[in-house]
């Protein structure tokens, strides 16, 4: 759909979660490979397990608002992921749900605000700052890009497309960083030379959300 052709409905959010789950499953081995280099080789499994559970929850319990979907995804990720990404993405979705409130459709500004709230949740939970080689290094530039796209009048898909592009760059740039948070911090200098798995999954999810929103019927 065109960028300004309207908001993001509950059905759109559900579709995005479903697409996110498929993307994570498709990229499972890549995420495992990244996590094997600087972690414990489970990020792919963790994300696949969490998003599968989220889809099945979202599909079984009808949600009335985008916020309700986001909240259900949050609690399901928290209960099912089993690794650091569970509390982190869980808190992100929880804060995003609070940020969007009870509205039935999200415009570009609401999407940008949801991303920002999500990022603040990750920061509150994990205490990482930009440069620590975590998902924050994908999420933080994504939020900046989203806000600026929303500010110049873009709708949800434009905002998400801008966020996704920035997140991809941010994730790629984690390669040279030395980890200061999460398991990878145990590796010290040796963590440099590898992309952070959580930054990669953040970029992947945002890219998928942008695509799903962009091709909306």
């Amino acid at each position: 759909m065109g960028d300004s052709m309207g908001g993001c409905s509950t059905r759109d959010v559900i579709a995005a979660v479903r697409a996110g789950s498929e993307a994570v499953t498709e990229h499972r081995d890549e995420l495992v490979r990244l996590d094997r280099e600087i972690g414990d080789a489970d990020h792919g499994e963790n994300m696949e397990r969490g998003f599968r559970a989220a889809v099945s929850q979202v599909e079984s319990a009808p949600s009335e608002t985008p916020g309700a979907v986001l909240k259900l995804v949050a609690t399901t990720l928290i209960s099912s992921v089993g690794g650091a990404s569970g509390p982190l993405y869980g808190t992100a979705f929880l804060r995003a749900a609070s940020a969007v409130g009870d509205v039935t459709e999200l415009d570009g500004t609401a999407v940008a605000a949801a991303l920002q709230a999500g990022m603040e949740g990750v920061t509150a939970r994990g205490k990482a700052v930009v440069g620590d080689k975590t998902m924050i290094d994908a999420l933080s530039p994504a939020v900046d890009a989203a806000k600026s796209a929303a500010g110049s009048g873009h709708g949800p898909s434009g905002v998400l497309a801008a966020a996704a592009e920035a997140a991809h760059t941010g994730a790629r740039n984690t390669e040279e960083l030395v980890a200061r948070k999460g398991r990878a911090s145990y590796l010290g200098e040796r963590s440099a030379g590898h992309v952070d798995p959580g930054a990669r999954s953040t970029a992947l999810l945002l890219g998928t959300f942008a695509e799903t929103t962009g091709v909306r019927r």
Partner: protein
Amino acid sequence: MSVGLVLVSHSRRLAEGVAELAEQMAPGVRIVPTGGTADGGTGTDFESVSAALEEAETGSGVVLVYDLGSAHMTAELAVEALDDPSGAVVADGPLVEGAVAAAVAAQGDRDKDAVARAAADAVGTD
């Protein structure tokens, strides 16, 4: 009764072993080990930690000790999900040494903040 203890580990065996050690130094303290994901893998499980929080609550509050960073975050989330989050506190400090120190402090009828401090100060204890 004394403050209860919840051990939040990535491994069930690890948590049970720590409980075993801590109980010997503090037989009167309620110590609940948790570890591993629901499907038996390595990781932490929010639901088990929440259940453990309930089990460890004696009316005097609960202190949680964790192993790695993600266990810390799961512990925090479980506390935030309580009806009264002020009834539990996540202690910094190494899991084994911190759990033993916390258990001994709880056995000595210290309150939950003092128990948490004992865990945090356990580095370099003999």
